[in-house]
């Protein structure tokens, strides 16, 4: 998993990057609670310089999703 998403998640949750596993999922990382989720979305938006669409907001479930949103790739369901 590229380091950018992991670093963003670690910074948001006050964790060390090595403590964020590749399969990190919603609520399964220390600090990824309701307020942590809000901070993660806001930090992601600051990083990409735009507001997430509602579809993107509800698609953020994992480290992999964070990476996808950072790189501007679309999820399969968004393309359907």
């Amino acid at each position, binding site marked *: 998993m590229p380091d950018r998403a992991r670093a963003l998640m670690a910074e948001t949750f006050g964790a060390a990057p090595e403590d964020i596993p590749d399969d990190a999922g919603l609520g399964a990382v220390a600090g990824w609670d309701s307020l942590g989720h809000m901070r993660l979305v806001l930090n992601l938006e600051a990083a990409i310089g735009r507001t997430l669409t509602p579809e993107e907001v*509800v698609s953020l479930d994992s480290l992999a999703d964070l990476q996808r949103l950072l790189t501007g790739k679309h999820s399969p369901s968004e393309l359907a």
Partner: protein
Amino acid sequence: MIASLTSTDVDEGYIRWWNDPEIQQGLNQPVRHWGFEQARTHVARFDDHNRFHLGIRCRRTTRLVGFISLFVEPRARVASTNIVIGEKEYWGRGVPLEVRGRMLQFLFRRLGVEKVKGTVYGRNLPSIFNYKAAGFRCEGILRADQPAVWGDGRVDVYLFGLLRDEWEARLRAAADSAPAEEVRDDA
């Protein structure tokens, strides 16, 4: 702890939540400017049959910290829900997740509903997290569906749903992944 609210449970804290801009903004609602009379009238509208208004109390202090509202459609066997944590010192402490679990058990097992729904107005990101963490799926987004009560423009509305089968599957998965000691204790 969750238990049905009655008019005698209405306290200054409960009234304050309805009049708090930050709380009402998250619900895309205006502040109510309620006093005791209006709040008690509101509580009395729930019949504990198809409309429930349950208080959320801190286990340690028994202080009322929030509430759950449930609206059951008996013919469709569907329930709409709303959870508000009014005391802000309890925000970010997982209270909605904990009480939603018990609420779902009540709705699916006791009342026999087949689906539980929830609605999020605008970018209420903590609420979106709480629904997803409880296993709800976002079934649709109504774009710019409501006028923004706070500020200009309109807000998107997120529709969440959880089916009984999905909830049962989550319970089984949690039991399967729990250590053997815990499973025995729960049996």
